[in-house]
C-alpha cells in the first residue's frame, strides 16, 4: 500500500513537492526557533560561571549583564577608579576583574582588563580560560585574542593591529598611533570570550591618553575629578565599565550586593549573574512564546496546505479509486491509502526540514554567529525537538482522516461506477 501511495504521489509530483516543501519549511522554522531558544539559553548560562557579583555604575540589571559579559549593547555610565579601589577593599572579595569597554577591533569588542581576567574568569562548568598559543599581556602594547578573532582576522602571535574608538563597524577615530602586538590567543570556549580582543588597562590608558584632547572623549573623561590616590602610581585608566567580583564565600554575595547598591561614593549597581539571567529569561519569555506560537501556526498552515492538496486531488482520483475497488481493494484500503499518502508527505517534509536545519547550521552557522552573535550547534535533536516532530506527524495523521473518510465514502457510493 505504501508503494501504491508513493506511486500515486509521484504521479502528482508538483503538488506533492509543494506540500512537502511547505511542511519542510514550517518544520525548519519550528525547530529553528526551538533551537535558538534552547541553545541561546544554554550559551548564556555557559558564558559566565564562578563570578559572584558584577558591579557597574547605576543601570539596569539586564543591561549591566548583557554589556559586561556578552558585549551586547553599551553602558552609558562608568564607575570610577575610586570605586574600584573601594570594591577591592571589601571584606570577602577573593578576586576582582576590572573591565573597560568602548573600543573595538573591526566588529569585535575590545575589552581592557587586567591579567586577573585570564586567571580567575570561569565559564561553562567552572572552566578556566586556556591559552592556545602565547601567554598573557607582557606590557601595555600587547593583546590577547579570542579564538574567533584570531581565526577570522588571521592573526598570529607577534602580529600587530590597531583598535578604534567606538563599538563595532566603521569608526572615525582610529587609534592608529598605538598598535597592539598579539601576545596570546585563547582556546575556543564557545562563548563571547571567543569574539573579543583583550588588552591591558594600561594599554587602553595609553591609547586614550593620547587622544584625551580629542573632543569626542570629553564626556568619557569628564568626571576626571581630583580624587586622592591611595596608590602612589597613577591609575592606568580613570573609569571602568564593570568589575567582576569573586567572593571567598558565596553566601556573602547577597549582603555585599546590598552594600554596594547603597555605596555612598557613587551610585553603583551590583548583580548576581545567575539571578540576572533568570530575570532576563523572564523578560524574554513572552517573546519566546510569541515566536513559538507563530511557528506553530506556520506548521498548521503547512499541514492545512497538505489537507487542501489531498482533498482537491480526490475528485480527479475517483477513477483511480474505482479501479482499486475493482481489483478488490476494500474501502478500508482506500482509507489507508490516503492516510499513508499524508504520512509520506509529512515524514518526507519533516525529514527535509531536519536536513535543512543542519544544512543551515553547517553552512550558515558562522555567518549567523558573526552577524547576530547567535551560536547554533549541530547537536543531535533534543527530546523537545523530537516531540515537536512527533506532534507534526501526529497532526498530519489526524488531519489525513478527513480526506481518507471522504475517499472511503466515495468508494462506497461510487463502487465500480466511474464518475469522471
Amino acid at each position, binding site marked *: 500500500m505504501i508503494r501504491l501511495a508513493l506511486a500515486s504521489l509521484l504521479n502528482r509530483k508538483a503538488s506533492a513537492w509543494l506540500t512537502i516543501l511547505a511542511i519542510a519549511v514550517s518544520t525548519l522554522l519550528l525547530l529553528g526557533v526551538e533551537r535558538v531558544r534552547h541553545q541561546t539559553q544554554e550559551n548564556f548560562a555557559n558564558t559566565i560561571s564562578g563570578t559572584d557579583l558584577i558591579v557597574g555604575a547605576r543601570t539596569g540589571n539586564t543591561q549591566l549583564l548583557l554589556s559586561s559579559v556578552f558585549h551586547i549593547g553599551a553602558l552609558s555610565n562608568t564607575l570610577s577608579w575610586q570605586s574600584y579601589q573601594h570594591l577591592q577593599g571589601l571584606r570577602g572579595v577573593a578576586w576582582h576583574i576590572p573591565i573597560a569597554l568602548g573600543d573595538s577591533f573591526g566588529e569585535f569588542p575590545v575589552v581592557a582588563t587586567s591579567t586577573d581576567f585570564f586567571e580567575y574568569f570561569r565559564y561553562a562548568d567552572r572552566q578556566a580560560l586556556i591559552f592556545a598559543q602565547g601567554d598573557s599581556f607582557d606590557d601595555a602594547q600587547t593583546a590577547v585574542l579570542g579564538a574567533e578573532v584570531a581565526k577570522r582576522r588571521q592573526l598570529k602571535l607577534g602580529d600587530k593591529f590597531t583598535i578604534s574608538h567606538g563599538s563595532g563597524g566603521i569608526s572615525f577615530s582610529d587609534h592608529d598611533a598605538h598598535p597592539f602586538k598579539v601576545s596570546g590567543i585563547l582556546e575556543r570556549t564557545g562563548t563571547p570570550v571567543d569574539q573579543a580582543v583583550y588588552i591591558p588597562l594600561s594599554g587602553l590608558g595609553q591609547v586614550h591618553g593620547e587622544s584625551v584632547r580629542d573632543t569626542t572623549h570629553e564626556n568619557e573623561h569628564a568626571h576626571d575629578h581630583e580624587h586622592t590616590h591611595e596608590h602612589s602610581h597613577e591609575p592606568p585608566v580613570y573609569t571602568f565599565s564593570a568589575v567582576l567580583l569573586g567572593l571567598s564565600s558565596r553566601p556573602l554575595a547577597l549582603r555585599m550586593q546590598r552594600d554596594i547598591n547603597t555605596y555612598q561614593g557613587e551610585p553603583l549597581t551590583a548583580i548576581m549573574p545567575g539571578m540576572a539571567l533568570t530575570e532576563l529569561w523572564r523578560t524574554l519569555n513572552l517573546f519566546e512564546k510569541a515566536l513559538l506560537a507563530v511557528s506553530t501556526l506556520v506548521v498548521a498552515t503547512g499541514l492545512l496546505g497538505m489537507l487542501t492538496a489531498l482533498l482537491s486531488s480526490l475528485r480527479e482520483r475517483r477513477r483511480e479509486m474505482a479501479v482499486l475497488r*475493482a*481489483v*478488490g481493494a476494500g474501502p478500508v484500503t482506500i482509507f489507508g491509502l490516503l492516510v499513508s499518502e499524508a504520512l509520506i508527505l509529512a515524514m518526507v517534509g519533516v525529514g527535509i526540514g531536519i536536513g535543512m536545519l543542519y544544512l543551515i547550521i553547517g553552512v550558515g552557522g558562522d555567518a549567523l554567529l558573526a552577524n547576530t552573535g547567535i551560536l547554533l550547534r549541530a547537536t543531535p535533536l533534543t527530546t523537545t525537538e523530537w516531540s515537536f516532530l512527533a506532534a507534526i506527524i501526529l497532526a498530519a495523521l489526524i488531519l489525513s482522516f478527513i480526506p481518507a473518510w471522504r475517499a472511503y465514502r466515495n468508494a462506497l457510493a461510487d463502487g*465500480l461506477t*466511474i464518475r469522471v
Partner: protein
Amino acid sequence: MTGTCIELKNLEFQWPGATRPLLSIPQFNVQQGERVLLRGASGSGKSTLLSLIAGIHAPAKNQLHVLEHDMGKLSQRQRDKLRANEIGYIFQQFNLLPYLTAVANVSLAAKFSPARRRRVNEISPHHSEHAKELLLQLGLDKGDLSRPAHQLSVGQQQRVAAARALFGSPALIIADEPTSALDADHRDNFIQVLFNACQQHNTTLLFVTHDGSLAHHFERSIELNEINQATLGHI
C-alpha cells in the same frame, strides 16, 4: 470444470428510496467456463446487476449466488475479498492507474488477493514475468510493456485491462462494455484475444454490451429485458 458460476433466483433489487424494483429476475444461470453475452440498453439495470454480481452492492439473501457464495449473506469485506480473489473486472475505459506501467497495472490484481498471488506463484515466482507473458499473449508489443499506462492507446489499455482481469486466473471475468471505446477492427480483435485467453484459463466470461452485433461471437446471448420482469412489467 462444471458447476454454476452465477446463479440468480428470484432476484429483486431496488435502490433505497425508489418506488419500484429496478431488477426482478426469476432465474438466470451462468455455468462455469461459459461465455455469455448479456445485452441491454442503457438504463435497463445492467450496471446495477453487474455491481451486485461483483459484490459492490448486496442483494437480499438467497437471491444471488456467485461461485456458491450467497452474496446476500456475505459482509462488505467478504464480498471485496471474493471479488479480489475470483472476479476480474474490465471497464468500458479508464481501466488503468495512469501512473503505473502496463506490467504494474496487471500485477495490481494480485495485490489485494492472496489467492491470486498463490495461483500466480504456481505458474511463475516472478509476478512481473507472468504479467509480461499475459500481455504478450493479449497482443501487446514488447516495447509497450514497461510504458506508463497513460501513454498507451485506448485499444492497448483495454488489452492491459483484460490481462489484469485474467491475472491469477480468477473464476469469472465481468466485462462491462469493454469494446465500446474501440473501433470495429479493434473490437473484433479484442474479443477474439479475450476469448482465447478465457478458454486457455477456463475462465467464465460475462460480457455486457448494448451492441447486439457482437452476439455472433458468443455461444450464448441473453437479452436483459427478456429475463428482467421489472422492465417487462413496465412496458
